[in-house]
Structures are given as C-alpha cells and as structure tokens.
C-alpha cells in the first residue's frame, strides 16, 4: 500500500536527566524544533496526538504552543504510547479528515525501577507483597528460558549492552555517552540473573515531536520526507509470555511482536530482508536478542553469530539500535517509541552524523514492546 503519512519535521529534547526542566517544557522544545524543521508554525497544525505516562496531559501543551482550537487527543497506551499516537495520526490523514498535524511524546520519570500496583493489572495484592511483580525479574525469567530453548550462551548479553553504550557515545542526544566494556558490564551487580545492572535501561526523561502530513503533499514542506509505509499495533494472545503473569499457558503462542511486525511489513509491501537500519525494544540486552528474531530480522538462534561478528553494529549489514537504544537513552515511556522513529528519520535523511549508517539507507524499521503485552512496529521509507 502507498504510504498515507509523511514525516516532514522532526524535533527532540535530549534524553537523560534534565534537572529543572519539566517534561512539558521538554515537549514544547521538541515541538518547536519539529515545526522549525518543517518551516511551519503551530498555527498551521490541524490536529495533535500526544502521549505521556507521568509528565502531564499532552493537550495542555497548547497553553504554551498556542490556543488555536485544534483538536488535540491524548494517547495513553503504556509502552506503545508513541506508536499509538503515530498510528492515530496516520488514521486521521488516511481518512481524509486532516492533511497536516503534530505528533508528540514526552515523559519524566523518577529514578529507580517502575513501581506498579497489582490492582491496576487486575492481580491480587499478594503478587506484589511477595516480590513477584517486577519488570526486571520478568526479563530475567524470559531471557533465561529463551537462551535455554535456543542454545545461546549468556556472554552475548554483555556484548549487546557494550554496543548500546558505544552507539550512545556517538549520539549527542543520548543519556549514556560513555563506552563501557563487555567485561565491566558482565561484572556489574546482578539485578536478575543472568542480567546485570548495565544490561538494563533506566526510566528517564525526554521528548520527541513530528510534523506529519499527507504523503502526496510532503514535498511542499520538506526536501527529504520520511514515509510511514507500514505501522501496526498488537496486543497479546492466549499463550504468550508477558510481564506480570502469575501463570502461563502450557501451549505457547507467539509474542505480540511477531504479529505487529508481520502486519507492518505486509502493509509496506516489504520484508525484513529489505531493512537497512532497525531500532528494536531493548529494555535490557535480552530483549534486543529476542526481538531481533521475533520481528523477523533474523532466525531464532542466529543472533549470537550476528552480534559477535559485528553485523548489528552501525557499520554492520544489519545495524540495530544505532542511537544507543533504550539502554543508552533511558526509557521515558511516552517518548521512547517516537525516539526510534526520530533516529530512523535521521538515518534515512542521512543526518545522523557520527552514528550515521553508511550506504545510503532507504528502509528503516522500529519496534516497541511493553506491558501488558503490546507491540507497535513501523516500516519507514524515503
């Protein structure tokens, strides 16, 4: 299918910790940067879709940006908030309702692991009280099973994080900008065996915004538009292994990633083999490993060779998480998925600077995955 939506302006507020700057202020910064990139004013925007988990209602940004009466919709969909906002914009444009608008995601989380109330997930208080309700723990359990099933050693987990910090060091908008060796990563305190402290991303801050328009008018605003050729969101099926599960079905089912990725590629009329640069959810090292295969970028079990041979490095033939991913950027929930799209847009425009993938990339892929078992994927082209 021909893309309906084009990204004609991109803006970001650096990720990490910005003391004294609210999440909303970071969002305004990103929006203004995106508008300037497109050569437009907020008054030109016909609609807005915005998401934030804990930094305020996105629609209240209009008090800073301008009171123009535009319809502004708040999107809240866990880790897929950004992807859902972009999908909503795609639908608004595809339907013919609007031609030009804004997508924004931002967040600002306190330090430390996310604190979750079992009741909000429909689970009894005992689950949290006895120490079973931790996302960090889930990832340890999931990767342990995955490594066992596919005969992969644990050493590759440190190699993945090492690459994340190496790429982050090249990205001026990243939070973690210092390289850390695989040996140091492996020797860091064990958070949830076999995952150490440096293999996990941390909750953080940041904002990303896009000006989007009808694909057939993109050249009016921008010389190098990026097209949303495929986009899909999926929730879990019976039998998939998701966070905060007191029990699992014996009959295993594919993760929502598998279905979201396949649907996005089908819509784009492309396959994973066409991808020149990919950003996949790396909440921790093991997530990148699993998602490489679940998205279809490689076969299950092939990751170890790809990672250790450098194929997933910026200069490899399957560059993954070229901006340092969640591990080097942190995870501000509302902004995280849009950060992947921002990085892909930079790559396709050839503007990624020190972390630019060589060879004039034309097809990019993004993937988020999170609680309570959702995934959003996009295929971006130019």
């Amino acid at each position, binding site marked *: 299918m021909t893309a309906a939506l084009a990204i004609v302006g991109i803006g970001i507020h650096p990720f990490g910790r910005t003391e004294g700057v609210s999440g909303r202020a970071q969002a305004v910064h990103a929006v203004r940067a995106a508008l300037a990139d497109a050569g437009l004013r907020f008054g030109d925007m016909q609609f807005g879709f915005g998401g934030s988990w804990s930094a305020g209602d996105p629609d209240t940004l209009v008090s800073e940006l301008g009171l123009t009466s535009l319809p502004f919709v708040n999107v809240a969909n866990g880790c897929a908030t950004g992807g859902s906002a972009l999908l909503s914009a795609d639908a608004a444009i595809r339907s013919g309702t609007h031609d030009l608008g804004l997508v924004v995601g931002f967040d600002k989380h306190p330090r430390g692991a996310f604190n979750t109330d079992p009741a909000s997930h429909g689970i*009894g*208080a005992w689950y949290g009280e*006895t*120490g079973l309700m931790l996302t960090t723990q889930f990832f340890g*359990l999931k990767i342990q099973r995955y490594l066992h099933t596919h005969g992969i050693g644990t050493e590759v987990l440190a190699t993945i994080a090492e690459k994340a910090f190496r790429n982050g060091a090249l990205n001026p908008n990243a939070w973690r900008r210092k390289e850390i060796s695989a040996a140091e990563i492996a020797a860091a305190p064990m*958070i949830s*065996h*076999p995952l150490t402290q440096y293999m996990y991303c941390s909750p953080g801050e940041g904002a990303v915004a896009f000006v989007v328009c009808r694909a057939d008018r993109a050249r009016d605003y921008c010389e190098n538009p990026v097209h949303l050729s495929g986009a899909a969101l999926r929730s879990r099926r019976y039998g998939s292994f998701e966070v905060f599960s007191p*029990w699992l079905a014996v009959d295993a089912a594919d993760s929502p990633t598998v279905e979201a990725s396949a649907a996005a590629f089908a819509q784009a009329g492309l396959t994973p083999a066409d991808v020149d640069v990919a950003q996949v959810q790396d909440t921790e090292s093991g997530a990148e490993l699993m998602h490489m295969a679940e998205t279809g970028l490689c076969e299950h079990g092939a990751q170890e060779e790809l990672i250790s041979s450098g194929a997933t490095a910026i200069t490899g033939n399957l560059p993954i998480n070229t901006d340092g991913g969640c591990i080097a950027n942190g995870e501000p929930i509302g902004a995280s998925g849009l950060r992947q799209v921002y990085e892909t847009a930079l790559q396709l425009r050839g503007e990624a600077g020190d972390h630019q993938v060589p060879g004039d990339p034309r097809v990019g892929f993004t993937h988020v995955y999170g609680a309570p078992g959702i995934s959003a994927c996009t295929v971006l082209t130019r």
Partner: protein
Amino acid sequence: MARTVDDSLFTSDGTALLGSRCDDCGAHTFPRQSGCPRCTGSSMADVPLHREGTLWSFTIQGFRPKTPYQGPDEFEPYGVGYVELPGQLIVEARLTENDPDRLEIGMPVRMEMVPFRTDDAGEPVLTFAFTPVGRS
C-alpha cells in the same frame, strides 16, 4: 492453618494451590478467575493444582523490591521461577533455592508453604514456594 499471604490462593487444607478449570475447553488459570482466557467462556470450576512439576525458567531477585513488597527489611536474594504443572499450567512462584548454579531448567520441584514474613503479632505469614526435589 497458619496465616497465609492470601487464603484464596490455596485449597482449604492449605496443601495446594487453587486454580480454575474451564468446563468448555479445559484451560487452567491461577489464581481462580470467572472467565476463560482461551475460549472466552465463563464457566470455570475450582481445581487444586499439582504440587509437583518441573522448573520451566528461573531468575534470582538481586535487590530488595520497593513497596508493595512486604518481605523482611534485611534482604536476602531469593529465587523466582516458573514451574510447569503437567496438564495444567505454568505457575510463577518463589523458589527456596537462591543459587543459580543449583537451579536448572527441567529439574523436578515440589510446592511447599514457607514463612515469608512476620506479622505485627509476631506470627509467621506463609506463602507458596517450590523447592528442588531430592535435595535437603
């Protein structure tokens, strides 16, 4: 029976976990629930879960969780696993073993009730955990 972390999780004699089984398709859940996540039916019956199974995956919780965790202030890393109960489901539980070198996917494990914390009256509060079979 001693105080448990939640009596509704257990059979009335406190010796097994209490789950649900779908009358229509046979799917199991834990804890009990009124609807079937597989066939979307709503006819579920209580069923005791097997006490013995095999370790399906495991990790070691390396830091003291924040609230709502209610374990003792003095933290000791604890094992957490998923245990496959044949023909029923895979249940998540604490493990009595916290050394990853002594745990292995596929090993036989058995459910037992273990003291998890002490309440305000000084009485132990019990929860369920799985322990490797054939080890002391």
